């Protein structure tokens, strides 16, 4: 069986599942459960809730596989479902948590204007821990957060991100650039605290 699995692409597996082969579904679950979890976990920063979102995503795959058309890559399709579910879960959590990382006021300036008091010495020793980085991700506005995780953590292409989020490649590019700079600025602020 293991040797058999290798020869199927994701798209072939969905097709087999659409035709009623439940083993193909289980194989897709095995392929995607951890990948999806890593994406959702960085987005929600809560293991339990993230696992639930991944379960919901894979349930959706089970009940709605017939909606998949081969014009899209399967990975893009499943990430779209996960991204949408994660987004609504985050909204729900935010209503509950009401945790705010203080003094992180977001002005919606397009780009940060280089300040005169920039201190390179502070940056050269940039040694950010996972916790700090996660904290900065949590604080990113949603439109940047999703692209940053998809790009930097999932290592997806601009094209794939554009398909998942339903936005143009130009917008993806601009959000990645702005998101990265935002993240950098947030980390700097966290360090200074």
């Amino acid at each position, binding site marked *: 069986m293991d040797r058999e699995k290798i020869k199927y692409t994701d798209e072939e597996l969905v097709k087999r599942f659409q035709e009623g082969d439940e083993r193909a579904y289980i194989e897709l679950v095995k392929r995607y*459960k951890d990948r999806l979890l890593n994406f959702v976990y960085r987005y929600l920063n809560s293991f339990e809730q993230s696992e639930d979102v991944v379960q919901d995503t894979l349930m959706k795959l089970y009940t709605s596989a017939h909606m998949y058309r081969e014009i899209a890559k399967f990975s893009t399709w499943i990430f779209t479902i996960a991204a949408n579910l994660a987004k609504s879960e985050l909204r729900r959590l935010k209503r509950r948590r009401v945790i705010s990382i203080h003094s992180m006021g977001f002005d919606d300036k397009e780009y940060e204007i280089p300040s005169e008091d920039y201190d390179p010495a502070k940056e050269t020793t940039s040694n*950010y821990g996972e916790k700090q980085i996660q904290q900065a991700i949590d604080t990113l506005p949603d439109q940047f957060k999703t692209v940053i995780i998809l790009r930097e953590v999932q290592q997806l292409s601009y094209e794939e991100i554009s398909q998942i989020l339903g936005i143009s490649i130009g917008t993806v590019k601009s959000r990645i650039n702005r998101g990265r700079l935002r993240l950098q600025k947030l980390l700097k602020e966290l360090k200074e605290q």
Partner: protein
Amino acid sequence: MDCYSFDRIISDYIDANLNVKLRQEANEHIEACPRCREKLADLKSILSKLSSMPTCKTRSDFESRLMDRINQTKEQKESRFIRMFQDYSRPISVVAAVMLLVATSIFVYTSVVIPNSPDSIPSAEIRSMEPNKSITPPATAIANVKPTLVNANNVGSLPDTNKVETQNYNNQIMMVNE
């Protein structure tokens, strides 16, 4: 290139998405500007950290929990169907009884009233059923009567279509009222 312009393209610079000319300008700026040089180094290190963030794994019972949920949903769907059937079974039986009644009346009407000419038997006479009154049924009406009914109700005589069908009709009414 100034620092502001460099900020705008820093991401494309890292992802090597710039054309030769822009890349050249960016390189020149980085060499001349410590701020942007450090900023670039810092951002690169953040991104490499991001890409190597520890990954997490679903718990070992993830798949079994998922399959349980799927099976549960399947069962719920089935039981919902059964419940729906149960909820509607009373109204369904009433409707069925009414339809049976209507169908039987139509059958009686078409096989008894229509085949006879209007002046030969008034409809009231069907119900009064005087046993001695002889009614000669037309050929078509005889043809409509099933042989079993004929044998059971009118042994050895010409079948009295009216009697047979009316009895049948009354039986149906009794059944429904029960």
